[in-house]
């Protein structure tokens, strides 16, 4: 039996661009280029490696996002994923964490899965909790924040991994189905090859809306949100500091500055 892997991938505004909020206090997506969240590239990479090790595996990449989010799916397909699902619906605009995890969980169930792999966090919202929420909603083990991951025994097998925490490094183990998230320590993601990019154009991308997932519009979107953003203000630019060129006394000058500020 084939090991069914679903990888969640988020389409986010480029972190090196001038990111800001729109008038309705959601992320402004018009002024900044979007891309596949770099931390989800690590999830795609680990899925590809797990699939390589398995006798038979199929990787589906899944995103919840606007029309342009197809770019994120294409990138993941060109890295080597087999097919894609795009959940797209005008009523999804402004969905928060709880709503996003609901939509993802319903889509994952509809797609069918043995293993879900997510990134450690998105590069825009950066909450880092969607994978744990998927495990909660799907009722399967969470094996999250792994810097090392492996799967043995196919669809009814076991997932093992290493989680490097603040106070300890832990070895984890759970039986499938399970939800995994991987950190940027899990191994560099491959670049899509020219062949991969060409092949991606022919791979199937399925589109689902809220009705397909039997989700009511009032469970998602800005209206259905469990949270409300009241204001977003740009941080005032820092006042220009003193910059000196070291001409032999740079360390001493810096020490004097630190002393003046009472750090010494």
């Amino acid at each position: 039996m084939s090991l069914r892997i679903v990888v969640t991938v988020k389409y986010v505004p480029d972190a090196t661009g001038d990111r800001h909020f729109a008038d309705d206090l959601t992320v402004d997506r018009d002024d900044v280029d979007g891309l596949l969240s770099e931390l989800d590239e690590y999830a795609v990479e680990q899925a590809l490696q797990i699939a390589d090790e398995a006798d038979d595996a199929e990787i589906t990449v899944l995103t919840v996002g606007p029309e342009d989010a197809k770019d994120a799916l294409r990138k993941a397909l060109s890295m080597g994923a087999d097919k894609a699902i795009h959940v797209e619906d005008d009523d999804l605009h402004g969905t928060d964490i709880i709503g996003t995890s609901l939509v993802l969980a319903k889509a994952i169930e509809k797609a069918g899965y043995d293993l879900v792999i997510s990134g450690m966090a998105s590069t825009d919202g950066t909450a880092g909790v969607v994978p744990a929420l998927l495990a909660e909603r799907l009722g399967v083990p969470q094996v999250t924040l792994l810097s090392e991951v492996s799967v043995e025994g196919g669809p009814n097998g076991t997932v093992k991994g290493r989680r490097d925490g603040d106070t300890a490094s832990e070895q984890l183990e759970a039986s499938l189905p399970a939800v995994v998230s991987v950190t940027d320590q899990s191994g560099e993601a491959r670049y899509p090859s020219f062949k991969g990019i060409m092949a991606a154009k022919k791979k199937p991308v399925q589109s689902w809306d809220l009705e397909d997932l039997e989700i009511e519009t009032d469970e998602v979107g800005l209206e259905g949100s469990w949270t409300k953003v009241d204001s977003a203000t740009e941080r005032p630019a820092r006042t220009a500091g003193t910059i000196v060129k070291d001409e032999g006394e740079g360390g001493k000058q810096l020490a004097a500055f630190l002393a003046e500020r009472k750090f010494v």
Partner: protein
Amino acid sequence: MAEVLVYVDHVDGAVRKPTLELLTLARRIGEPVAVALGPGAADTAAALAEHGAVKVLTHDAAQYADYLVVPKVDALQAAYEAVSPAAVLVPSSAEGKEIAARLAVRIGSGIITDAVDLEAGDEGPVATQSAFAASFTTKSRISKGTPVITVKPNSAAVEAAPAAGAVEALAVSFSAKATGTKVTGRTPRESTGRPELTEAAIVVSGGRGVNGAENFSIIEALADSLGAAVGASRAAVDAGWYPHTNQVGQTGKSVSPQLYIASGISGAIQHRAGMQTSKTIVAVNKDAEAPIFDLVDYGVVGDLFEVVPQLTEEINTRKG
């Protein structure tokens, strides 16, 4: 007055500083009731009472150490049901956020992660968050259910406020899900004797410019002269010069110390995401065009191998 649940982060009974900060914030919105789980849970009571906990709910069981996250969610849910609080506050550690999120879904509530400040509002607590690598500040609240909010370290100054801190045993029955993810091995992190990175008042960081693991001794010597924690950029971590646990930035720790000193770090957006809110920022970099200089209160354009040792020596001299 409404009760506010505060999840306690502790190591064998020693309460970590972010929890004491949470108690300070919790008092702005109600009466803190602390929840301490695992080995040494009851030993946390004195410190928690000293900082304002009116009650300390404790529970220990093998499940907390043997299985990942879910046993703690079960316990926090039990505390939630016992107390019916006005809000639930959890420290923004990786695990804390996962516990808080799962609780939120179970109790039908929204969640705000990584708050950097918290105040009472007409429609429930208002949380301040820092967005897009700290270039924006947002104010948000929970509009459905009981507010579940995770708060970053260094979001409030710890204030003593002695309260009863009566210890009560929490009754917990674990769900079937609790034993889903086994912890089959654990290697505790060795202490360096330096302050914890996210809790330190001063952080001294090195980047690619440090140019080798052995050269990090220069950064460590400066840190020790200031009683500081040591941080590193991802470039330095990826090169294997310093452990990943010391990485500062988007995928590392976010720090907000009184003083941040960056040496041989260019100041890429992902690094800035983790240190931009530091009160005073200092950089040593040989490239006058490095973006880190846009952030600094004081910058030295120069070779870190010259500047940093001189700085350390001068600090040690001044200290006498």
